[in-house]
Protein backbone atom coordinates (compact mmCIF):
# COMPACT_ATOMS: atom_id res chain seq x y z
CA UNK A 1 0.00 0.00 0.00
CA UNK A 2 1.50 3.29 -1.07
CA UNK A 3 0.54 6.67 0.27
CA UNK A 4 -0.71 9.24 -2.13
CA UNK A 5 -0.37 12.95 -1.65
CA UNK A 6 -2.27 15.75 -3.32
CA UNK A 7 -0.11 18.21 -5.19
CA UNK A 8 -1.45 21.39 -6.70
CA UNK A 9 0.35 22.84 -9.67
CA UNK A 10 0.11 26.59 -10.08
CA UNK A 11 0.35 28.43 -13.38
CA UNK A 12 4.09 28.87 -13.85
CA UNK A 13 5.69 32.11 -14.87
CA UNK A 14 5.74 31.85 -18.65
CA UNK A 15 8.46 34.47 -18.94
CA UNK A 16 8.66 37.78 -20.76
CA UNK A 17 6.69 39.60 -18.12
CA UNK A 18 3.43 37.78 -18.78
CA UNK A 19 1.09 37.68 -15.80
CA UNK A 20 -1.81 35.60 -17.09
CA UNK A 21 -2.81 33.02 -19.67
CA UNK A 22 -6.02 31.63 -21.14
CA UNK A 23 -6.77 27.93 -20.97
CA UNK A 24 -7.24 26.76 -24.55
CA UNK A 25 -7.72 23.05 -24.01
CA UNK A 26 -7.23 20.53 -21.26
CA UNK A 27 -5.30 17.51 -22.45
CA UNK A 28 -6.16 15.48 -19.36
CA UNK A 29 -9.35 15.08 -17.36
CA UNK A 30 -10.06 14.32 -13.69
CA UNK A 31 -9.47 10.65 -13.09
CA UNK A 32 -6.85 10.34 -15.85
CA UNK A 33 -3.52 8.83 -14.99
CA UNK A 34 -0.77 11.01 -16.42
CA UNK A 35 2.96 10.56 -16.83
CA UNK A 36 5.53 13.19 -15.93
CA UNK A 37 6.09 15.48 -18.94
CA UNK A 38 3.00 14.18 -20.72
CA UNK A 39 0.91 16.94 -22.36
CA UNK A 40 -1.30 18.47 -19.67
CA UNK A 41 -2.85 21.67 -20.89
CA UNK A 42 -2.68 24.09 -23.74
CA UNK A 43 -2.50 27.78 -22.81
CA UNK A 44 -2.46 31.01 -24.74
CA UNK A 45 -0.75 34.21 -23.71
CA UNK A 46 -0.80 37.52 -25.49
CA UNK A 47 2.29 36.38 -27.33
CA UNK A 48 1.95 32.70 -28.07
CA UNK A 49 0.26 29.41 -27.46
CA UNK A 50 2.09 26.85 -25.34
CA UNK A 51 1.60 23.29 -24.25
CA UNK A 52 2.42 22.71 -20.60
CA UNK A 53 3.75 19.26 -19.70
CA UNK A 54 2.69 17.57 -16.49
CA UNK A 55 5.11 18.25 -13.61
CA UNK A 56 4.13 14.98 -11.90
CA UNK A 57 3.30 11.38 -12.58
CA UNK A 58 -0.02 10.60 -10.93
CA UNK A 59 -3.75 10.95 -11.23
CA UNK A 60 -5.52 14.18 -12.11
CA UNK A 61 -7.86 15.06 -9.25
CA UNK A 62 -9.17 18.52 -10.08
CA UNK A 63 -8.88 21.12 -12.80
CA UNK A 64 -9.07 24.63 -11.37
CA UNK A 65 -10.00 26.49 -14.55
CA UNK A 66 -12.41 25.97 -17.41
CA UNK A 67 -11.40 26.12 -21.03
CA UNK A 68 -11.53 29.74 -22.08
CA UNK A 69 -10.86 30.97 -18.55
CA UNK A 70 -8.03 33.42 -17.78
CA UNK A 71 -5.63 32.24 -15.07
CA UNK A 72 -3.14 34.44 -13.20
CA UNK A 73 0.47 33.35 -12.78
CA UNK A 74 0.73 31.63 -9.41
CA UNK A 75 -2.94 30.59 -9.31
CA UNK A 76 -3.85 26.94 -8.99
CA UNK A 77 -4.18 25.17 -12.32
CA UNK A 78 -4.59 21.49 -11.52
CA UNK A 79 -4.39 19.16 -8.53
CA UNK A 80 -2.80 15.73 -8.79
CA UNK A 81 -2.70 12.72 -6.53
CA UNK A 82 0.86 11.46 -6.62
CA UNK A 83 2.36 8.43 -4.95
CA UNK A 84 4.64 9.03 -2.01
CA UNK A 85 4.24 10.30 1.52
CA UNK A 86 3.48 13.93 2.29
CA UNK A 87 6.44 16.14 2.95
CA UNK A 88 8.83 14.22 0.71
CA UNK A 89 9.13 17.14 -1.63
CA UNK A 90 7.65 20.34 -0.35
CA UNK A 91 6.81 21.78 -3.72
CA UNK A 92 3.08 21.27 -3.89
CA UNK A 93 1.54 24.59 -4.78
CA UNK A 94 4.92 26.20 -5.08
CA UNK A 95 4.90 27.00 -8.76
CA UNK A 96 7.93 28.19 -10.57
CA UNK A 97 9.86 31.09 -9.17
CA UNK A 98 10.59 32.66 -12.49
CA UNK A 99 12.85 31.45 -15.21
CA UNK A 100 14.60 29.19 -12.71
CA UNK A 101 13.68 27.77 -9.35
CA UNK A 102 10.55 27.44 -7.23
CA UNK A 103 8.78 29.73 -4.83
CA UNK A 104 9.45 28.50 -1.27
CA UNK A 105 6.34 27.73 0.74
CA UNK A 106 5.95 29.53 4.03
CA UNK A 107 2.60 28.08 4.96
CA UNK A 108 3.93 26.19 7.91
CA UNK A 109 7.24 26.20 9.67
CA UNK A 110 9.44 23.15 9.05
CA UNK A 111 8.86 20.37 11.56
CA UNK A 112 11.31 19.80 14.36
CA UNK A 113 12.32 16.84 16.45
CA UNK A 114 14.93 18.35 18.78
CA UNK A 115 13.66 19.43 22.19
CA UNK A 116 15.50 21.91 24.42
CA UNK A 117 16.11 21.97 28.15
CA UNK A 118 16.50 25.43 29.70
CA UNK A 119 19.78 25.92 31.55
CA UNK A 120 19.82 25.63 35.32
CA UNK A 121 20.22 29.09 36.79
Amino acid at each position, binding site marked *: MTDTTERTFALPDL*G*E*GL*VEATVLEWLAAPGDRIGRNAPLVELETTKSAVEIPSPYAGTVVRLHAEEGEVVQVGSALVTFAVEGPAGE*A*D*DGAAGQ*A*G*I*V*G*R*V*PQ*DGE*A*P*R*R*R*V*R*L*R*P*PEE
Partner: protein
Amino acid sequence: MTGTITEAAGAADASAPRVREMSMQQAVNAALRTVLREDPRTLVFGEDVGALGGVFRVTDGLQEEFGAERVFDTPLAESAIIGMAVGLAMNGWRPIPELQFDGFAYPAVDQIVNQLARMNYRSRGAVPMPVTLRLPSFGGIQAPEHHGESLEALFAHVPGLKVCAPCDPQDAYRLLLQSVRCDDPVVYMEPKARYWDRRPVELAHDPGDMPVGRSRVLRRGRHATLVAWGAMVHRCLQAAEYAAEDGVELEVVDLRWLKPIDAEGLAASAARTRRAVVVHEAPLTAGLGAEVSALVTERAFGALAAPVERVAGFDVPYPAGPLEPQYLPTIDRILSAVQRTLEYKRP
Protein backbone atom coordinates in the same frame (compact mmCIF):
# COMPACT_ATOMS: atom_id res chain seq x y z
CA MET B 1 1.29 43.57 -9.34
CA THR B 2 3.62 46.39 -10.30
CA GLY B 3 0.79 48.88 -10.21
CA THR B 4 1.05 48.89 -6.46
CA ILE B 5 4.68 49.84 -6.58
CA THR B 6 4.17 52.64 -9.04
CA GLU B 7 1.39 54.06 -6.98
CA ALA B 8 3.28 53.71 -3.72
CA ALA B 9 6.58 55.08 -4.92
CA GLY B 10 4.91 57.58 -7.18
CA ALA B 11 3.43 59.70 -4.45
CA ALA B 12 5.81 62.62 -4.20
CA ASP B 13 5.02 63.72 -0.65
CA ALA B 14 8.12 62.61 1.21
CA SER B 15 6.93 63.92 4.55
CA ALA B 16 3.99 61.53 4.93
CA PRO B 17 4.96 57.99 5.85
CA ARG B 18 3.55 55.71 3.20
CA VAL B 19 3.06 52.13 4.23
CA ARG B 20 2.13 49.43 1.76
CA GLU B 21 2.24 45.69 1.99
CA MET B 22 4.63 44.40 -0.63
CA SER B 23 6.96 41.56 -1.44
CA MET B 24 10.71 41.91 -1.22
CA GLN B 25 10.82 41.96 -5.03
CA GLN B 26 8.49 44.93 -5.00
CA ALA B 27 10.39 46.60 -2.18
CA VAL B 28 13.66 46.45 -4.11
CA ASN B 29 11.81 47.69 -7.17
CA ALA B 30 10.38 50.59 -5.17
CA ALA B 31 13.83 51.44 -3.81
CA LEU B 32 15.28 51.44 -7.32
CA ARG B 33 12.49 53.79 -8.43
CA THR B 34 13.26 56.08 -5.53
CA VAL B 35 16.97 56.36 -6.31
CA LEU B 36 16.41 56.62 -10.06
CA ARG B 37 14.01 59.46 -9.40
CA GLU B 38 16.09 61.33 -6.86
CA ASP B 39 19.44 61.15 -8.61
CA PRO B 40 19.79 61.51 -12.39
CA ARG B 41 23.27 59.97 -12.20
CA THR B 42 21.92 56.55 -11.22
CA LEU B 43 21.83 53.82 -13.87
CA VAL B 44 20.44 50.29 -13.69
CA PHE B 45 21.84 47.65 -16.00
CA GLY B 46 22.49 43.95 -16.29
CA GLU B 47 21.28 40.84 -18.02
CA ASP B 48 17.54 41.05 -18.79
CA VAL B 49 16.90 43.92 -16.38
CA GLY B 50 15.49 46.17 -19.10
CA ALA B 51 12.90 44.84 -21.51
CA LEU B 52 12.20 41.72 -19.46
CA GLY B 53 12.20 43.43 -16.08
CA GLY B 54 14.56 40.93 -14.47
CA VAL B 55 14.16 37.20 -14.03
CA PHE B 56 12.54 37.85 -10.64
CA ARG B 57 10.64 40.96 -11.83
CA VAL B 58 12.74 43.13 -9.54
CA THR B 59 13.36 45.70 -12.27
CA ASP B 60 9.87 45.40 -13.72
CA GLY B 61 8.67 48.59 -15.37
CA LEU B 62 11.85 50.57 -14.67
CA GLN B 63 12.84 50.85 -18.31
CA GLU B 64 9.35 52.08 -19.16
CA GLU B 65 9.49 54.77 -16.52
CA PHE B 66 13.11 55.88 -16.82
CA GLY B 67 13.97 55.04 -20.41
CA ALA B 68 16.42 52.70 -22.05
CA GLU B 69 19.31 55.11 -21.50
CA ARG B 70 19.13 54.70 -17.74
CA VAL B 71 17.79 51.15 -17.44
CA PHE B 72 19.29 48.83 -20.00
CA ASP B 73 20.21 45.29 -20.92
CA THR B 74 23.80 44.18 -21.25
CA PRO B 75 25.46 41.29 -23.02
CA LEU B 76 25.89 38.06 -21.04
CA ALA B 77 29.33 39.15 -19.90
CA GLU B 78 29.61 39.69 -16.15
CA SER B 79 33.16 40.97 -16.24
CA ALA B 80 32.10 43.57 -18.79
CA ILE B 81 29.08 44.56 -16.68
CA ILE B 82 31.28 45.40 -13.70
CA GLY B 83 34.01 46.87 -15.89
CA MET B 84 31.40 49.19 -17.35
CA ALA B 85 30.19 50.10 -13.86
CA VAL B 86 33.75 51.03 -12.89
CA GLY B 87 34.18 53.21 -15.97
CA LEU B 88 30.83 54.91 -15.45
CA ALA B 89 31.57 55.57 -11.78
CA MET B 90 34.93 57.10 -12.74
CA ASN B 91 32.98 59.52 -14.90
CA GLY B 92 30.56 60.61 -12.23
CA TRP B 93 27.69 58.14 -12.60
CA ARG B 94 26.18 56.02 -9.81
CA PRO B 95 25.80 52.63 -11.45
CA ILE B 96 23.55 49.93 -10.01
CA PRO B 97 24.56 46.84 -11.97
CA GLU B 98 22.88 43.50 -11.44
CA LEU B 99 24.64 40.17 -11.80
CA GLN B 100 21.75 37.85 -12.47
CA PHE B 101 22.72 35.11 -10.02
CA ASP B 102 25.32 34.64 -7.28
CA GLY B 103 27.28 32.01 -9.21
CA PHE B 104 27.52 34.35 -12.19
CA ALA B 105 29.62 36.72 -10.10
CA TYR B 106 32.69 34.51 -10.40
CA PRO B 107 33.49 35.64 -13.97
CA ALA B 108 33.38 39.25 -12.69
CA VAL B 109 35.63 38.73 -9.68
CA ASP B 110 38.64 40.21 -11.45
CA GLN B 111 36.81 43.49 -12.12
CA ILE B 112 35.27 43.49 -8.64
CA VAL B 113 38.48 42.79 -6.74
CA ASN B 114 41.12 44.39 -8.93
CA GLN B 115 39.23 47.48 -10.09
CA LEU B 116 36.00 48.21 -8.28
CA ALA B 117 37.25 47.57 -4.75
CA ARG B 118 40.54 49.42 -4.98
CA MET B 119 40.01 52.34 -7.35
CA ASN B 120 39.40 54.69 -4.46
CA TYR B 121 42.57 53.57 -2.70
CA ARG B 122 44.60 53.58 -5.90
CA SER B 123 43.57 57.16 -6.66
CA ARG B 124 44.28 58.38 -3.10
CA GLY B 125 40.57 59.01 -2.65
CA ALA B 126 40.21 61.10 -5.80
CA VAL B 127 37.99 58.55 -7.57
CA PRO B 128 35.15 57.22 -5.43
CA MET B 129 33.28 54.16 -6.64
CA PRO B 130 29.60 54.68 -5.75
CA VAL B 131 28.55 51.37 -7.30
CA THR B 132 25.80 49.15 -5.87
CA LEU B 133 26.23 45.64 -7.15
CA ARG B 134 22.89 43.84 -6.83
CA LEU B 135 23.41 40.12 -6.47
CA PRO B 136 20.43 37.74 -6.10
CA SER B 137 22.00 35.32 -3.65
CA PHE B 138 21.83 32.21 -1.52
CA GLY B 139 19.69 29.11 -2.04
CA GLY B 140 16.28 27.88 -1.07
CA ILE B 141 14.44 27.96 -4.41
CA GLN B 142 15.64 24.65 -5.82
CA ALA B 143 17.33 26.34 -8.75
CA PRO B 144 20.03 24.72 -10.90
CA GLU B 145 23.77 24.83 -10.30
CA HIS B 146 25.36 28.31 -9.94
CA HIS B 147 22.04 29.70 -8.66
CA GLY B 148 22.37 28.98 -4.94
CA GLU B 149 25.80 30.18 -3.88
CA SER B 150 26.65 32.26 -0.82
CA LEU B 151 29.55 34.56 -1.65
CA GLU B 152 29.47 36.86 1.38
CA ALA B 153 32.75 35.63 2.87
CA LEU B 154 34.53 36.05 -0.45
CA PHE B 155 33.43 39.67 -0.82
CA ALA B 156 33.72 40.56 2.87
CA HIS B 157 37.36 39.51 2.63
CA VAL B 158 38.12 42.07 -0.08
CA PRO B 159 39.30 45.42 1.31
CA GLY B 160 37.37 48.30 -0.21
CA LEU B 161 34.03 46.54 -0.55
CA LYS B 162 30.99 46.87 1.67
CA VAL B 163 28.59 43.94 1.82
CA CYS B 164 25.01 43.76 3.04
CA ALA B 165 22.11 41.29 2.93
CA PRO B 166 18.53 42.21 3.89
CA CYS B 167 16.12 39.64 5.30
CA ASP B 168 12.74 41.31 4.80
CA PRO B 169 11.06 43.82 2.44
CA GLN B 170 11.46 46.84 4.72
CA ASP B 171 15.16 46.31 5.19
CA ALA B 172 15.60 45.49 1.51
CA TYR B 173 14.17 48.92 0.74
CA ARG B 174 16.23 50.70 3.38
CA LEU B 175 19.54 48.95 2.65
CA LEU B 176 19.26 49.59 -1.07
CA LEU B 177 18.77 53.32 -0.53
CA GLN B 178 21.77 53.34 1.79
CA SER B 179 23.90 51.34 -0.60
CA VAL B 180 23.19 53.60 -3.55
CA ARG B 181 23.74 56.78 -1.54
CA CYS B 182 27.04 55.44 -0.22
CA ASP B 183 30.19 56.55 -2.06
CA ASP B 184 31.85 53.14 -1.68
CA PRO B 185 31.12 50.03 -3.69
CA VAL B 186 28.50 47.87 -1.98
CA VAL B 187 27.67 44.26 -2.77
CA TYR B 188 23.94 44.07 -2.04
CA MET B 189 22.94 40.41 -1.66
CA GLU B 190 19.23 39.69 -2.18
CA PRO B 191 18.03 36.45 -0.58
CA LYS B 192 16.10 34.82 -3.42
CA ALA B 193 14.19 32.58 -1.04
CA ARG B 194 12.59 35.66 0.57
CA TYR B 195 11.64 37.49 -2.64
CA TRP B 196 7.97 36.55 -2.25
CA ASP B 197 7.77 37.44 1.43
CA ARG B 198 5.05 40.09 1.78
CA ARG B 199 5.11 42.59 4.64
CA PRO B 200 4.18 46.20 5.24
CA VAL B 201 6.89 48.55 4.02
CA GLU B 202 7.24 52.18 4.90
CA LEU B 203 8.61 53.96 1.88
CA ALA B 204 10.54 56.52 3.88
CA HIS B 205 13.18 58.42 2.02
CA ASP B 206 15.44 58.51 5.04
CA PRO B 207 16.96 55.21 6.18
CA GLY B 208 16.62 56.72 9.64
CA ASP B 209 18.55 55.57 12.63
CA MET B 210 20.13 52.50 11.02
CA PRO B 211 23.59 53.61 9.90
CA VAL B 212 25.79 51.51 7.65
CA GLY B 213 27.25 48.64 9.66
CA ARG B 214 24.50 48.43 12.30
CA SER B 215 22.87 45.10 13.12
CA ARG B 216 19.44 44.81 14.73
CA VAL B 217 17.84 42.58 17.32
CA LEU B 218 14.63 41.14 15.90
CA ARG B 219 13.65 39.13 18.94
CA ARG B 220 14.74 39.53 22.53
CA GLY B 221 15.74 36.50 24.59
CA ARG B 222 17.94 35.72 27.56
CA HIS B 223 19.30 32.19 27.05
CA ALA B 224 21.26 32.37 23.80
CA THR B 225 21.76 34.60 20.74
CA LEU B 226 21.18 33.41 17.18
CA VAL B 227 23.08 35.43 14.57
CA ALA B 228 22.10 35.26 10.90
CA TRP B 229 21.57 37.25 7.69
CA GLY B 230 19.44 36.87 4.58
CA ALA B 231 16.98 34.00 4.50
CA MET B 232 18.49 32.29 7.56
CA VAL B 233 17.15 35.09 9.76
CA HIS B 234 13.66 33.83 9.06
CA ARG B 235 14.67 30.29 9.92
CA CYS B 236 16.25 31.47 13.19
CA LEU B 237 13.01 33.25 14.08
CA GLN B 238 11.16 29.99 13.50
CA ALA B 239 13.69 28.15 15.69
CA ALA B 240 13.19 30.77 18.40
CA GLU B 241 9.43 30.13 18.28
CA TYR B 242 10.01 26.43 18.86
CA ALA B 243 12.56 27.07 21.61
CA ALA B 244 10.01 29.26 23.39
CA GLU B 245 7.67 26.24 23.55
CA ASP B 246 10.39 24.53 25.59
CA GLY B 247 10.92 27.54 27.84
CA VAL B 248 14.15 28.60 26.14
CA GLU B 249 14.27 32.25 25.14
CA LEU B 250 16.44 32.91 22.12
CA GLU B 251 17.56 36.31 20.96
CA VAL B 252 17.76 36.72 17.17
CA VAL B 253 20.23 39.19 15.66
CA ASP B 254 19.89 40.14 12.00
CA LEU B 255 23.44 41.07 11.05
CA ARG B 256 22.38 43.01 7.88
CA TRP B 257 25.86 44.37 7.17
CA LEU B 258 28.47 41.68 6.59
CA LYS B 259 31.19 44.26 6.02
CA PRO B 260 31.57 46.40 8.01
CA ILE B 261 30.32 43.96 10.62
CA ASP B 262 28.66 45.15 13.83
CA ALA B 263 31.18 43.70 16.30
CA GLU B 264 29.90 45.77 19.19
CA GLY B 265 26.27 44.86 18.63
CA LEU B 266 27.13 41.18 18.39
CA ALA B 267 29.28 41.24 21.49
CA ALA B 268 26.64 43.14 23.45
CA SER B 269 23.96 40.58 22.63
CA ALA B 270 26.23 37.59 23.33
CA ALA B 271 27.32 39.15 26.61
CA ARG B 272 23.67 39.48 27.65
CA THR B 273 22.67 35.91 26.74
CA ARG B 274 26.14 34.37 27.41
CA ARG B 275 25.73 32.00 24.45
CA ALA B 276 25.85 32.50 20.68
CA VAL B 277 25.06 30.39 17.62
CA VAL B 278 25.77 31.76 14.16
CA VAL B 279 23.79 30.34 11.23
CA HIS B 280 24.59 30.63 7.53
CA GLU B 281 23.99 28.84 4.25
CA ALA B 282 27.57 29.03 2.99
CA PRO B 283 29.90 26.08 3.63
CA LEU B 284 31.28 25.99 7.18
CA THR B 285 34.99 26.26 6.55
CA ALA B 286 36.22 29.85 6.33
CA GLY B 287 32.63 31.04 6.18
CA LEU B 288 31.56 34.35 7.72
CA GLY B 289 30.42 32.41 10.79
CA ALA B 290 34.09 32.02 11.68
CA GLU B 291 34.45 35.80 11.70
CA VAL B 292 31.34 36.22 13.86
CA SER B 293 32.60 33.55 16.25
CA ALA B 294 36.01 35.23 16.49
CA LEU B 295 34.55 38.70 17.09
CA VAL B 296 32.19 37.49 19.79
CA THR B 297 34.95 35.50 21.46
CA GLU B 298 37.42 38.40 21.35
CA ARG B 299 34.95 40.91 22.74
CA ALA B 300 32.78 38.88 25.10
CA PHE B 301 35.00 35.98 26.15
CA GLY B 302 34.63 36.67 29.81
CA ALA B 303 30.85 36.67 29.64
CA LEU B 304 30.43 33.51 27.56
CA ALA B 305 29.13 30.34 29.18
CA ALA B 306 29.94 28.20 26.13
CA PRO B 307 31.98 28.34 22.92
CA VAL B 308 30.26 30.02 19.98
CA GLU B 309 28.57 27.40 17.80
CA ARG B 310 28.35 27.51 14.02
CA VAL B 311 25.52 25.96 11.98
CA ALA B 312 26.31 26.17 8.28
CA GLY B 313 26.13 24.52 4.92
CA PHE B 314 28.42 21.56 4.39
CA ASP B 315 31.84 21.72 2.76
CA VAL B 316 30.53 20.50 -0.58
CA PRO B 317 29.52 22.23 -3.79
CA TYR B 318 26.00 23.63 -3.46
CA PRO B 319 23.78 20.64 -4.22
CA ALA B 320 21.10 20.10 -6.83
CA GLY B 321 17.60 21.36 -5.94
CA PRO B 322 16.08 18.23 -4.38
CA LEU B 323 18.96 18.02 -1.88
CA GLU B 324 18.63 21.60 -0.68
CA PRO B 325 16.62 20.61 2.41
CA GLN B 326 19.48 18.33 3.44
CA TYR B 327 22.13 20.97 2.83
CA LEU B 328 20.64 24.12 4.31
CA PRO B 329 20.67 24.54 8.09
CA THR B 330 17.49 23.04 9.49
CA ILE B 331 15.50 23.97 12.56
CA ASP B 332 16.81 20.80 14.20
CA ARG B 333 20.44 21.58 13.49
CA ILE B 334 19.96 25.06 14.92
CA LEU B 335 18.18 23.76 18.02
CA SER B 336 20.83 21.06 18.54
CA ALA B 337 23.57 23.68 18.48
CA VAL B 338 21.60 25.77 20.95
CA GLN B 339 21.27 22.72 23.19
CA ARG B 340 25.04 22.16 23.07
CA THR B 341 25.62 25.70 24.29
CA LEU B 342 23.02 25.23 27.03
CA GLU B 343 24.61 21.98 28.23
CA TYR B 344 28.20 23.09 27.96
CA LYS B 345 30.30 22.43 31.08
CA ARG B 346 33.75 23.89 31.40
CA PRO B 347 36.33 21.11 31.53
